[in-house]
């Protein structure tokens, strides 16, 4: 369903507004949806994503927690097992590391180890990626870690419109979902977002732009850069949206047409999600590739502080060069 098909009840919103509206909508719809995290209540979240929700739904459903990431996720696991649908906020992705044991050893395994008796329908929302010139560890792109762990879904919206449809699906999903919100996009772009509810399916990408010569896969904030850099190329751009499980069929059908693929992401190249996509395509579309799959991604360096952020993050020039490279084959 496209924005246009949704009809008249839509208005321009930024991603903060779209996510906020989705949270409210899902909490209205299902009283077992609860929110917890640091500063999500009274303060409405450091990015104001949960603004007004505590006032509307009460402190029992929008819980300001102590400063305890492990505890926030561990408690979410317990709530999810109990039958609630917790939506936990980790204030920045760089602070999710403290909760990884809860995600890897519990959230992702509860269904398997109990053979379906207990499940973990929880969502962990966290702002991620480079671009707001915040202090160290406020700009992490660690999505690949979560993609490697079976039992977890990983979702990244690229617009206010798909943020709403994807988040609603994530909350209703019966397995744990890591929902990564590109902080750079929070207020940078607007789209028409329908008032009524709609679901965008997890596991499906979207063709952001059709093209013939070259396929580009990207997600989140990088999608917009990759698209900007594609000016002058007849490129088919895929907005991946769900990173795990990613839309194999969409990528394959595009690549079989173009014979060329560039994957762009912010995270460091080595063992990033680009590696998996490249490995998958190189195998599944072996006979079709006119050029090797190129990755244009972060350097082998920890995400630097503000001054060097823009040097770390692949810029338009670097991305363009990758396009040119594959076109030269």
């Amino acid at each position, binding site marked *: 369903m496209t924005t246009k098909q949704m009809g008249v009840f839509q208005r321009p919103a930024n991603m903060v507004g779209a996510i906020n509206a989705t949270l409210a909508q899902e909490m209205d719809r299902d009283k*077992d949806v*609860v929110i917890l995290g640091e500063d999500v209540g009274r303060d409405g979240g450091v990015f104001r994503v949960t603004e007004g929700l505590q006032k509307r739904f009460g402190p*029992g*459903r929008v*819980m300001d*927690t*102590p400063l*305890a990431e*492990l*505890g926030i*996720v*561990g*408690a*979410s*696991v*317990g*709530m*999810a*097992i*109990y*039958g*609630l649908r*917790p939506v936990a906020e980790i204030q920045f992705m760089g602070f999710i590391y403290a909760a990884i*044991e*809860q995600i890897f*050893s*519990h959230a992702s395994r*509860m*269904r*398997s*180890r*109990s*053979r*379906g*008796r*207990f*499940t973990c329908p929880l969502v962990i929302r966290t702002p991620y990626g480079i671009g707001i010139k915040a202090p160290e560890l406020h700009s992490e792109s660690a999505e690949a870690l979560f993609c490697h762990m*079976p*039992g977890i*879904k990983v979702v990244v919206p690229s617009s206010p419109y798909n943020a709403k449809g994807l988040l609603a699906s994530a909350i209703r999903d*019966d*397995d744990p979902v890591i929902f990564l919100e590109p902080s750079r996009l929070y207020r940078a772009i607007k789209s028409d977002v329908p008032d009524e509810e709609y679901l965008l399916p997890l*596991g499906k990408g979207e063709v952001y732009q059709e093209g013939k010569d070259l396929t580009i896969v990207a997600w989140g904030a990088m999608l917009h850069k990759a698209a900007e850099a594609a000016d002058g190329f007849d490129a088919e751009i895929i907005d991946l949206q769900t990173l795990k*499980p990613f839309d*194999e*069929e969409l990528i394959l059908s595009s690549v079989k047409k173009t014979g060329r693929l560039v994957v762009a992401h912010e995270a460091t190249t080595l063992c990033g999600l680009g590696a998996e996509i490249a490995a998958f395509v190189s195998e599944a579309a072996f006979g079709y590739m006119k050029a090797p799959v190129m990755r244009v991604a972060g350097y082998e360096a920890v995400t630097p502080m503000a001054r060097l952020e823009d040097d770390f993050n692949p810029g338009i020039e670097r991305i363009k060069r990758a396009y040119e490279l594959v076109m030269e084959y």
Partner: protein
Amino acid sequence: MPISVIGKMEVKRLQVINEQGQADASLISLLPDSIYNKFFETITLARLYNQRALSLQREGRLGTYASILGQEASQIGSALAFDPSDWIIPSFRESGVLIAMGYPMRLLYRYWMGDERGMSCPEGLNILPMCVPVGSQLTHSVGVGMGIKHKGEKKAVAVYFGDGASSRGDFHEGLNLAGVFKLPVVFLCQNNQWAISVPRSAQSAGATIAERAFSYGFEGIQVDGNDVAAVYKATKDAVDKAKAGGGPTLIECFTYRLDDHTTSDDATRYRSRDEVEAWKAREPLIRLKLFMEKKGLWSKAYEDEVIKKASDAVDAAIKEAEAMSPPDAADMIRFTNKELTLRQKRELEELEG
């Protein structure tokens, strides 16, 4: 006065039946006689189950196993204070708790045979799977407590963990959150004096584990963990308080692990026989029997009958466990997530085809 006292605390310890089988009349009268039979029968059953698990392991019919010998009072006295509808979050050494709650022994054996189906808790009970990463279950109790509060139910949560687990950050975050949100959680520390080879004294320089509760704004108490009546009493009080909205309690059951850590361990490498012998003399059944005999609740004939019944139940459970079909390899993929991914579908085909 430059230095003022702004807080005071006292750490208490509860014992109801002493090692000679004598009991404090005021407390003992609060419990009905039948409860002692229940204690005795459940401990006997758990002990037989445990014995057989150890021999099955030696025969290669069971994997690595963690014995509960010596800790039966702490496990069973506490578990019996909960209702079947309450939530139980065990560590990895809680066979006695599960048996007391009525968890099918055949599933327990199956679990120790290395089969996930053993931890698929039957409907009607709310017992989470045994938790292998030590201490990582503590914060789950917070979530379950929040769930109970959210749904406005009158239920309590038990979360079990060892003295070793009490050193993990999870302990701190779990207890702190439970205190802040005043949740109906009973934290049941099974202080059996050892975490594999690390003695309690090297686990923390703090005098007791119980006292930590005060830091989180609720009560902690140490109980003689080999005194099933004391464990039961303290737990029942905590459960009642939890259900009445009084918030969490930390109970430190001071007990002892009489066997090796697991069947892969050799405890003689790190602790003295004397220490073990001294604790053997304090094991829970001795005093319980003395006490029950005085009360006319125990006789040799009664014990024989209890053992016979327990033994039959254990035999049946082992038979059923061993008769179960082998696990289906495809299940490991099927139960990873609700809807299979394309990759998983291909893998299933490969696995089955």
